[in-house]
Each structure stands twice: as C-alpha cells, then as structure tokens.
C-alpha cells in the first residue's frame, strides 16, 4: 500500500513502513508458536472425548465471523484508497465500517467463548483448551488493538483539516496491521476449525 508521501530512505521505502513489515514478519513466530502448541495438544485428547474442542465448534457461526473479518479487509483497503484519492469523507466512512466489522468479530468471539464456558470448557480443563484460548484470545487481542487504532484515526479525521499526508502513512500502517490480523485468522480458521 503506498500513499503519496516523500521517501528519504536509501531503500526507497519509509523506515516506519519497513519497521511495520519487520514487526509483522516477527509476528509469524508468535502465532506460529501458539498454533503449534494447539496442534501438539489436539491429538492428546481423543476426538471421541466429549471435551474435545472439535465437538464444541459451531462452524456456521465461525464461518460468518471469518466472512466479517475478510470483508473488513476490503473496507480497510477502500479507506486507504479513498484517502490516496483525497476523498476524506469516504476514507472516514470506510474507517468506521472497518472498526464496526472488527467489533462485530470481537462480539462473535466473546459469544463463542461464553458458549464454550457454559458447555464445560475452560482454560484449566485440558491443555488443548488452554492452547485454544491462548491462540484465539491473542488473535482477538490483536483485533481489539486494531480497532483501537482505527478509532483513533477516525477521531483524528474528524478534526478540521482531516487526515493529512503524514497521517496517510499512519492509515497505511494500520491497514497493514489489520490485513495481517486477517491472514492470521485465515490460517486459524482452516487449521483449527476446519481440519479435523
């Protein structure tokens, strides 16, 4: 994503942007650890066991949550595109839509966790459950941080001069982070929920 802003670095890429890419790259190691942890313990509890997470998953519900997060990536990229075109009003609308979809996803996750706890699951029930909550909880925390950054950008955009060129880079960085959260969910949805 490249908004029109001056680049003074020898790499031709803004230092902050390169730092964001490096940060996101390192996040693969964090989420990789959590996913591996889940996969490790998943097989330690027989699928026939009533407490195995596979017997708790509500695939239609999680599919809708996944769809919501995917669409938030669309609204995010449209916000960035609108700002690059100088359309502050549309950028603001798409930012708010992205934050709204993020909150919807978080609400779904909160509902899912509540259902699991009501049905007898919990952090201390089995290692596979600890690893499940650790993984999805950390992802949810990332979404929450993303929503917070989107809301801050929205508030800044409400000021008289709207989002400036410098803040265009901020929006781009928040966008990269948001899309990363989305691609991590693509992996989690397939590996944790869909593959038995």
């Amino acid at each position, binding site marked *: 994503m490249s908004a029109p802003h001056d680049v003074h670095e020898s790499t031709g890429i803004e230092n902050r942007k390169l730092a964001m890419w490096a940060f*996101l*790259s390192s996040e693969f190691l964090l989420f990789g650890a959590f996913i591996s942890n889940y996969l490790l313990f998943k097989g330690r509890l027989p699928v026939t066991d009533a407490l195995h997470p596979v017997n708790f998953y509500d695939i239609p519900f999680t*599919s809708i949550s996944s769809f919501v997060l995917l669409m938030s990536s669309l609204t995010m990229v449209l916000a960035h*595109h609108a700002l690059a075109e100088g359309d502050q009003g549309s950028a603001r609308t798409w930012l708010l839509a992205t934050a709204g979809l993020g909150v919807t996803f978080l609400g779904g996750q909160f509902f899912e966790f509540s259902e699991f706890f009501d049905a007898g699951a919990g952090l201390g029930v089995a290692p596979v459950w600890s690893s499940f909550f650790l993984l999805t909880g950390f992802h949810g925390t990332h979404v929450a941080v993303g929503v917070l950054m989107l809301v801050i950008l929205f508030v800044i955009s409400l000021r008289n001069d709207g989002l400036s060129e410098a803040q265009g880079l901020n929006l781009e960085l928040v966008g990269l982070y948001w899309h990363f959260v989305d691609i991590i969910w693509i992996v989690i*949805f397939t590996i944790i929920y*869909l593959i038995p």
Partner: protein
Amino acid sequence: MAHPTPKQYIRVAIFLAVLTAVEVGLFYLEAGVDGVTPSMTSPALLILAAVKFLTVVGWFMHVKFERPLVSRFFSIGFVIALGVYAVVLTEMALAFARG
C-alpha cells in the same frame, strides 16, 4: 504497476468469500458423506487457505505492487516460523510416540 481500483478490490473480496464458502462446503462434505475422508479434504483446505493468504497479502497488503524488499522482509519471518515449528512439531510428535 498501477494500483487496483475499488471495483478490482471488490472482485478480490468476492473471490475470497467464494473460497471461504468452498472451504466450509468441504468441511461438511467430509463430515456428512461416507467415503470422503480428512486425508482427501485436508490438502484441499490447506491449498484454499494458502490461496486466500496470498491473495490478501498480494492485493490488500499491496505486496505485488511494492518493491521486492518488502516481500523479502515479510517472507523471512514466515519461512523461519514454518521451519522452526515444523521441526518442533516433528520432534514433539516423536517424543510423544516414544512415551
């Protein structure tokens, strides 16, 4: 390379939504049809996830329109994570098998 238009972004999003629907369909195919096993659907699910992953990275994160340095930066972390955890999972699986 010119950046995509909003219409192109919407087409990409529809493509991603269709792939997600196919994934869910495969899940129910495996769960509801005798003779369809996880060993048949799992590789397809992984391929679909990889296509979705690369589509978001390429189009929404604009990696295909950026300098190669960006994709190198990004893929280094992914490759290291994949390698490290493949080794860890293999080693742990062997340790569990040994008891």
